[in-house]
């Protein structure tokens, strides 16, 4: 395995090491392929924008961060990749930070009362969105770092596989942590990171605002990188946990599961997986309902991303619960398949939506409409994407999403939690098809709205909306093509991901047969019913009657309340803002009343004191220490100058002194001899 040592001191060994297993390879291929297509698309999309160096730097670093994450065998290095993405998302979402125009007003929106949400310019709003994304994901990251460090104190290795790693049978971290009762806290802390990055409840609030950046950024965040990172991390931990516990228990686990404290298998983490599954299911349903009322084109897609991510997390959680019976693989596989299919069709949808927004100069769907005629090819590819999103066979989304629902059904057969998960999953599927059709109807069907806004006149030189150029369209065709034929690729992924030894044809047949034969027929049937329940009203309202204004929801009453509740996004976002605003006001108060007068006062006083002392010390140095040395030399020079006065240069003086001295000597001699 290629590796290079980064830190190697006793007790802390952190190498750069690559991990090539089915999961990481699938994720790496998926993200790098999508990144490539999105970069190609961006070359045309961003052709007339400034600051492209910054843009492409961040875009490429983003993809690099994702690859670092998925290919690293080292949790710490993976975390670095994770944080690179966080930073790049911040830079890219707020990319248009200097737009001076006023933010576009949502014609179907409502007034924001929170002072934090008042923006003078669009640039401000974009910056705010970027900051929000960074801060919210950082909240998860902070927990995650804590979890990583907690885990490390027991594993003493950041490695996933290899000697001494977490999955090494010699490493007893699992048992130790379970005995200390720290297993679940550590796993929850790490999962908090995934909640933040993958936008799961309750940290889903950043993703809908992350639409502020250029569209290709949205596509990158939603399809290829960033939000998939959380899913990857959860899946990685599922695999690691399964490998750890199975190596610790080569025999069947059920016997041991009944002797608590004797030993610890995967059942110690079952609460964790239940929480994962429930979080996923709640997210899938909740954000699905939010998507039904949003008016912003890309925001609808954002909600759909959140909802689909919920499915993926749900699949991982279900896989974990099913791992108790020894078969986590199929459910995990369906999660991975959903990552792949979602990556493709969501990239498709975003890039197509970008083309639409590019050509009609608004992001609100109520200002669009009737584009089917103008943007023929965009319409076609977007239709494919939407069908896949809604899970209509034979598009890619159908296979992956439906198998997730199937596994929740399997769980529901013997676990009450499973029933809850199943209901939410099916409910989310109904919401999904509703907003998918609503999106198509509002954007492409119905009449073209009149140009009544005066601002629109500035753009009159733009002719009618039209399909974008080849650099933008070709990636769309590729993605659409994949979405249609994905069902033929999935058996290959299955072969790789779970080492399935069946041939392609066998798996293919199995895939189809499971839907139309008995136990699988029941969840399939229920899903179809749910799709009809969501799809038919949407079709009637938004496609068939697209030309007539929509007045289904009365101005008052329970329906309006529900509508408003959904439009306020279950008030979750606003409650956060309310709290943050209160906190900021408190902090401001603290600053004015405590910090500035007291603490700052101490600071300034001590700085003044330091300068005062330093002046005195300098005086001491100059005058006493140096003064002493200089004084010695000055005194010496002065003394010699004084004595110099005796050097008169006249011979008479010298002779006089000599005679005087000689006389003195004579007197002394006489004295000593006693003669005087």
């Amino acid at each position, binding site marked *: 395995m290629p590796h290079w040592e980064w830190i190697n001191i006793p007790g802390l060994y952190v190498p750069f090491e690559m991990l090539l297993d089915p999961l990481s390879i699938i994720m790496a291929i998926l993200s790098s392929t999508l990144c490539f297509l999105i970069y190609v698309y961006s070359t045309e999309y961003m052709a007339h924008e400034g600051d492209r160096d910054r843009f492409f730097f961040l875009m490429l670093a983003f993809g690099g961060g994702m690859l670092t994450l998925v290919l690293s065998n080292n949790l710490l290095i993976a975390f670095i990749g994770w944080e690179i993405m966080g930073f790049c998302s911040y830079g890219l979402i707020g990319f248009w930070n200097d737009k001076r125009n006023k933010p576009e007003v949502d014609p179907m929106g409502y007034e924001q009362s929170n002072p934090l949400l008042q923006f003078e310019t669009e640039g401000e709003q974009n910056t705010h969105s970027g900051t929000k994304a960074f801060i919210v994901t950082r909240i998860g990251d902070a927990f995650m770092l804590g979890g990583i460090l907690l885990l490390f104190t027991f594993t003493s290795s950041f490695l996933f596989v290899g000697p001494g790693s977490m999955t090494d049978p010699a490493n007893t971290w699992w048992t130790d942590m379970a005995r200390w009762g720290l297993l679940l806290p550590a796993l929850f802390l790490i999962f908090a990171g995934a909640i933040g990055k993958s936008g799961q409840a309750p940290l889903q609030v950043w993703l809908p605002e992350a639409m502020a950046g250029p569209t290709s950024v949205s596509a990158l965040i939603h399809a290829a990188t960033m939000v998939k990172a959380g899913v990857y991390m959860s899946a990685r931990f599922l695999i690691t946990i399964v490998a750890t516990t199975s190596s610790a228990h080569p025999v069947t686990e059920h016997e041991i599961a009944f002797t608590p404290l004797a030993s610890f298998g995967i059942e110690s983490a079952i609460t964790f997986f239940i929480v994962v599954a429930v979080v996923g299911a709640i997210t899938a349903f909740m954000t699905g309902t939010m998507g039904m009322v949003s008016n912003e084109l890309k925001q609808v897609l954002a909600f759909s991303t959140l909802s689909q991510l919920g499915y993926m997390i749900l699949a991982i959680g279900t896989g974990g619960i099913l791992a108790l019976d020894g078969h986590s693989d199929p459910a995990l596989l369906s999660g991975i398949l959903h990552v792949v299919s979602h990556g493709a069709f969501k990239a498709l949808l975003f890039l197509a939506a970008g083309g639409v927004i590019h050509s009609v100069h608004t992001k609100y769907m109520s200002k669009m409409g009737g584009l089917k005629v103008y943007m023929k090819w965009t319409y076609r590819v977007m239709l494919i994407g939407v069908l896949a999103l809604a899970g209509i066979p034979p598009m890619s989304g159908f296979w992956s999403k439906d198998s997730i629902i199937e596994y929740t059904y399997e769980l529901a057969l013997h676990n009450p939690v499973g029933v809850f998960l199943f209901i939410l999953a099916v409910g989310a599927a109904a919401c999904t098809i509703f907003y998918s059709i609503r999106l198509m109807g509002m954007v492409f069907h119905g009449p073209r709205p009149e140009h009544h806004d005066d601002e629109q006149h500035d753009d009159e030189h733009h002719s009618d909306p039209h399909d974008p150029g080849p650099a933008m369209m070709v990636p769309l065709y590729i993605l659409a093509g994949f979405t249609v034929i994905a069902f033929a690729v999935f058996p290959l992924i299955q072969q790789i991901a779970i080492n399935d030894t069946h041939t392609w044809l066998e798996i293919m047949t199995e895939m189809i047969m499971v839907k139309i034969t008995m136990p699988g027929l029941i969840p399939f049937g229920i899903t179809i019913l749910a799709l009809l329940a969501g799809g038919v009203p949407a079709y009637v309202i938004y496609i068939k009657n697209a030309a007539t204004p929509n007045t289904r929801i009365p101005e008052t009453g329970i329906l309006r309340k529900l509508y408003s509740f959904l439009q306020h996004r279950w008030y979750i976002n606003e409650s956060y803002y309310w709290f943050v605003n209160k906190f900021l006001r408190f902090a401001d108060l603290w600053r004015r009343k405590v910090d500035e007068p007291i603490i700052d006062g101490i600071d300034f006083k001590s700085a003044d004191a330091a300068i005062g002392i330093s002046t005195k*010390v300098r005086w001491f140095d100059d005058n006493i*220490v140096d003064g002493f040395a200089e004084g010695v030399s000055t005194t010496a020079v002065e003394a010699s100058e004084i004595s110099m006065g005796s050097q008169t240069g006249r011979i008479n003086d010298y002779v006089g002194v000599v005679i005087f001295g000689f006389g003195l000597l004579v007197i002394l001699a006489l004295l000593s001899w006693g003669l005087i």
Partner: protein
Amino acid sequence: MQLDFATNLLNLLPMNVLVLMLLVPLVGALFAYLLGSKGARAITLIITTLELGLAGLLIIGTPSLGSDPGGMSHTVSYMLARLGTDSTAPVFEIILGVDGISMVMILLSNLVVWIAAIGSNHIKESQGLYYTFFLVLQTGLLGVFMSLDLIGFFIFWELVLIPMFFIIGRWGEEGCRHASIKFFIYTHLGSAVMLVGFFYLYFMSSMFDINGVATQVPTFSMIALRDLGLDPWIQIGFALAIFMGAGVKLPVFPLHNWLPWAHVKAPTPGSVILAGILLKMGGYAFIRLGLWMVPDAIARLAIPFAIVAIFTCIYAAFTAMAQTDMKSLVAYTSINHMSWVLLGVAAYAAGAGSSDPTIQAAANLAIQGSIFMMFSHGTIISVMFIVAGQLKYNAGTREIPKIKGLMEKAPKLSAVLIIASLAAFGLPGFSGFIAEALIIFGAIVVYNWSALIGFGIFVTVGYMLWMLNRIVFSDPDAESENPITEASWSDLVAPILMLIPVILLGVWPDLVLDFVKPVIDAMLAGGSP
């Protein structure tokens, strides 16, 4: 760290590499004098570059702990005179040899001299003479770090003094004559006391027995003196003499007053060499003549040494804060930083004799830090001095309150100044941080009260940032009589080159420490045969 090809190259040289390194600048000095202002600069650049290359070759081609006596390598001796007629009579001789510590200092000297040579581009007057002194100075510096006997050491020690005296006095700015005489008197007084110490040790090395009869041939050789096992009280007398000689050079309070004068008044390359290496001679003398030769004596003086070091650090930091001349501020920063070296020396001396392995390890850390501090300070302070000198040309003055808005007017110069200042107060990522961290981690285990020196760091950060605030990040003064201009690339090349080791050592300190560690391990184990 030893590479075979470098060893082979060293063996290919026509003479002993140390002798070659001493002779090359001398010959260069002759040529520089003969060529005068026409070619002196060119020849100096060639010679200093060659010397730097030789130093690099020496350090990668020589084991840190050699096979010669005392763990030295490339030992060579040249007899000056024999004091007597028979072959057992004592001799005056010059012994050269290097171990890991010396080689690191030699590398530093050649690096700083090279940078100073590049930075001498503003010297226009009597170039031939200037570069002659410059190259003689280099010989002297190298000789100090190579000498293995007291006579040779003293000769080279004094050889440094004379060219430096002329460089300060002849090419300095207003008031430089006073400064150069002050420099000369202070250092010469120190050397004189040290010389007395040398002779004292020489006579005592006869190892008189109870009846006052000499049992040994007296010697000046450091290795022989070390192995004699002199009585600790004799050693202490010698150590105090060393404290005078090396303490002036280092410098410590209250022997430091020559330094601000000499640094401020000297031409910029002169300041660079003064701060970059001359001060290191003091630190090296403490380590080589003190810790390496008479460890017992320094161990008994460790507490006063440590107290003096901590006091000097804080005192110099406060004095620096009140300076208005940029060069003066940098000069006091030098005093501030070099006192760390003395603290590391004291901590090592106190801890080395301990039987507790934790304290021994701490002592090891502290002395590594001292040597690293010398290297790192030599690089950082060179940049600071070059930039400070450059202010005179680009801002018209070095008075801190008069320079405003440097960032806006001279972004490149500001960038260099900012990086150097950050490095100087020990921001992690720069070499200064590693040095301070090593010393304090070691010293604190030996003397827990040595944590007080942390207050010195605190004040240092304060005055450095305050200086940056006033000079760099202030608003430019439109009515200033001295318009600020951007420094040209020819002025910036020297400091930028010097920033490379500052940053490199900040992230890879073992690059230097690996050469030093074996020597220190041997010293801790009681000296190698």
